[in-house]
């Protein structure tokens, strides 16, 4: 895989403190390691205040790390000012220069480097063409729509072919429809340009659709780094499980083990069945069941499947799927998503009905530790 080659960016043990106005120290980054390979699309994902923007600004040079090393293309960058780093940024607010035309905005990085007018015009034209904004060079940014400004900001950041493009929640100001088409375009642009993207977002769906790898951050710590499927299917801890996708999380203790399976009892008394794996008797773990892992009927041998039974509290049709909310006799709430095919079984989903939800025992993901 390409990102196993020499990394474009390598961050080791990055620490950054802030002092609040009250004088308290806040750790925005608390020992973060990260490396981004050439041509890789990496997303920094986390709730606001998790340190993702701080990490991005440390790479672009607008924040100084308290300790730790930052290497871009093999060069130590800790003490290099922003204007000498081979990195460009697409800002959340776009930050287009209102007094310059679109063409001058896009050509700014070239103008700064003294590229002759003629070559500059050609390259500005190409960059605008790439983002679908050809021929708008003469306009002032103030006369463009939000989506157009976004594209101009993108063209401005790629015109000089940086080693690395940083994107700070660039799509958050766009409406849903525009955001989705921009997501696809960004992904396409990234593979065409062949430059590494580091993309910051708090939108887990955006992260899952676009990224080669996702870095989940919380409280200044890296919670998990991995491919989107891996992060979704095998979250490293309860925070990741809860932050990405819908989840049913049970704190449970292993009560019975056999060769292949383990039976667990949750803290409120639900019985769960998972693949044995490394589980030991009486071990405290957490069990994750995604809503879409449930079925209304047993899809295979009853040996490899298990079920949870309860009373339906609410069923909502969301187009294609039904979202079912069920409560077990022990009091746990279980969220399930069942597909269209089950429409014949709709009467089983009425509120107040008793429902049995099946799941494959190997689909249940076991997280270490009971702490949350």
């Amino acid at each position, binding site marked *: 895989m390409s990102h196993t080659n020499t990394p474009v960016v390598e961050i080791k043990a990055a620490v950054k403190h802030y002092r609040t106005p009250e004088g308290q120290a806040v750790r925005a980054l608390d020992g973060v390691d990260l490396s981004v390979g050439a041509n890789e699309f990496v997303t920094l994902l986390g709730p606001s205040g998790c340190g993702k923007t701080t990490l991005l600004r440390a790479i672009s040079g607008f924040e100084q790390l308290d300790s730790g090393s930052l290497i871009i293309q093999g060069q130590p960058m800790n003490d290099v000012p922003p*204007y000498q780093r081979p990195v460009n940024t697409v800002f959340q*607010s776009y930050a287009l220069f*209102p007094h310059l035309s679109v063409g001058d905005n896009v050509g*700014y990085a070239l103008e700064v480097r003294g590229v002759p007018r003629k070559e500059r015009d050609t390259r500005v034209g190409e960059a605008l063409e790439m983002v679908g904004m050809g021929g708008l060079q003469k306009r002032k940014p*103030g*006369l463009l729509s939000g989506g157009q400004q976004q594209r101009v900001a993108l063209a401005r950041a790629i015109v000089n072919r940086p080693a690395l493009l940083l994107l700070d929640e660039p799509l958050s100001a766009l409406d849903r429809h525009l955001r989705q088409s921009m997501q696809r375009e960004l992904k396409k642009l990234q593979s065409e340009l062949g430059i590494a993207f580091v993309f910051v977002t708090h939108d887990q769906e955006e992260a899952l659709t676009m990224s080669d790898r996702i870095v989940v951050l919380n409280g200044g710590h890296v919670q998990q780094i991995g491919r989107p499927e891996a992060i979704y299917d095998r979250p490293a801890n309860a925070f990741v499980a809860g932050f990405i996708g819908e989840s049913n999380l049970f704190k449970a203790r292993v009560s019975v083990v056999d060769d292949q399976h383990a039976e667990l009892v949750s803290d409120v008394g639900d019985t769960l069945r998972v693949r044995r794996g490394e589980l030991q008797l009486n071990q405290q773990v957490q069990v994750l069941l995604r809503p879409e892992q449930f079925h209304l009927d047993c899809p295979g041998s009853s040996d490899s499947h298990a079920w949870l039974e309860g009373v339906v509290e609410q069923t909502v049709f969301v187009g294609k799927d039904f979202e079912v909310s069920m409560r077990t006799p022990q009091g746990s709430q279980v969220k399930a998503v069942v597909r269209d095919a089950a429409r014949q079984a709709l009467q089983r989903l009425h509120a107040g009905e008793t429902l049995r939800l099946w799941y494959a025992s190997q689909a249940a993901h076991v997280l270490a530790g009971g702490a949350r």
Partner: protein
Amino acid sequence: MMRRLGQNLLSGYSLLFFVFLYLPIGLIFVYSFNGNPLNMMIWGGFSLDWYRSIFGMANSLADNVQYIESTDQLLGSLRTSLSVALITALISTVIGTLTALALARFRFRLQGFYRMLLFMPMMMPDVVLGISLLIFFVNIGIPLGKVSIIIGHCSFLVSYVFIVVSARLAGMDTRLEEASADLGANPWYTFRRITLPMILPGVIGGALLSFIISMDDLVITYFISGVDSTTLPVYIYGMIRRGIKPEINAIATLLILASLLIAAVGLYLRNRQPAALKAEDSHGS
């Protein structure tokens, strides 16, 4: 019915208000064309002689009238005022703008205190400022004259420029400067190409404001001007006691026209800017 009456009263009141405000200025304008050589408040026919007189052209009216002051002294004070105001505007605009930039862009100890110090000269009574400047100049041995007036004016006009430029800087997205640095521009390039054009309306506004205030200042200048460096306001003030030369009406009229011109240029520059300002706003967040 009552409503119409109320509206009429209101417009009548507004009319009176503006008459009260502008009639004295209108009178000066009218009497600058007064051909009466003896009493400038009694209309004696239309004449352009006062204007000819201040531009040094021979004319019958001014030559036939004997006043204590000479027209040369009057014109000399106008020249002093203009050169003082020009130099003051230049110096205070540069210092005020740089101060505003420093306080807006850097974080340092006692920042709030410095900001307060900059507001102080605006709130200080002119008399206090004038007398303290006088004592200061005398004590450290700066002779009273044009230089002392310029230093004195700059000491409080820097504050005015600072406030005007600060307001402009506060409305400017700091991300623009970051974007410029991000695209490879060093701090000086960023200042020249991004920051300065963005705050230019504020800088020009501050320069015009300090020019006009310097031109107009009487109280402070009265304390710190020397014998042969009288500014126009100080000269006119002195003239009240010795008899007013009718040329003053002509000079006042020309000054009003010049002020109107400057204000018009200022407004034009401000109206040329809205596209940029709107863009700033729509960036939001």
